[in-house]
């Protein structure tokens, strides 16, 4: 199913090229949002630890939970994009 989406240099007709651009744009914009979110999480973590270093071990778990939840958003975009690319 996934065999056709990689290495689009081989794709000759314009529809495939358009779809490839759309896929790349979608993932790019998705990672933009997730990048801001992840930056926020780590920024807040640094601030929190700077203010109250004794809470560090408690905050680490929450930090990684937030990191993974935010990071996953990119991949929902990626999977959605790939599905759209393959199915349409």
């Amino acid at each position, binding site marked *: 199913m996934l065999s056709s989406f990689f290495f689009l240099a081989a794709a000759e007709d314009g529809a495939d090229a358009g779809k490839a651009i759309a896929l790349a744009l979608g993932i790019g914009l998705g990672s933009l949002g997730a990048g801001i979110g992840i930056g926020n999480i780590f920024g807040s973590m640094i601030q929190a630890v700077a203010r109250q270093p004794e809470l560090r071990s408690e905050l680490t778990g929450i930090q990684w939970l937030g990191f993974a939840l935010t990071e*996953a958003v990119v991949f929902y975009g990626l999977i959605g994009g790939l599905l759209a690319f393959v199915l349409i």
Partner: protein
Amino acid sequence: MKRLIALSLGLFLALPSVALAAEGEEFDPAHEWELQEWVPIHLGPLDLSINKAVAYLLLATVVSIAIGLFLMRVKLGRDPDRRQALGETIYEIAQVQVAEQGLPHKAIGRWFPYVATLMVFIWTINILGFIPLPLSDETVEIAGVRVPTLAIFAATSTLSVTLALALMTWLFTHIEGIRANGVAGYFKSWIPDVPKGMLPMIVPLEVLGQFMRLISLSVRLYANMLAGHMLILTFIGLIFLTHWAVFPISVVFGTVFYLFEVVIVVSIQAYIFAALSAIYIGSAIEPEH
């Protein structure tokens, strides 16, 4: 001795390049996810064939049992050596960071084994996915014998595996919720306190949210592993396919992504899956409202 190990490791890792040169096919990383049947087993409409992903799952089962036995069961003493200390660290992460974060106190005894197993098992599958192993659909001829090429492939980068894991958590969530609160009490606990007029909008959303958990839990792990492997395979492929000037860039990026995946993503995803399972089960047993 160390040099000998390094040399043999280097040769071992150089073998995939031999394979790629030998086959001379069109390079496409997505071929890695077209699973061929190794041992066909068909029960009516059920396809239980053993393929690459199933082989990796079986291997991961054996390895995770071995990890558990070796680190936490064999020759335990009052004065822990490094092996036992590592086992205790893993146990403590499972206990403090995963189970106690999500599960209410009374449920830890019953559900700690499940979430700890999830954590160790998913970590093992993930890390096995980044070690080149001779489990592959392709073969290469070395000294007259056709052996499988080395490949990196994680069973968790197929949706069936992660969906099965997520389905287990999802079923246990509802079973435990119903057992702890009764059928009516549990389904009532899905719906937050809102004005009556809002209910027609809120109820479908909450029901949909329960199913979205299933999707988000499985797709998170699946997409993380899939994207990681795709990136690494693509950069490895660029080494062989493009201009020589790309080679250093490709090697550097490939190594960076590989280390990122191995050091951070593998452990984080295992931790997240277990922690979210604990949180879901815990919130079903003791709803907040």
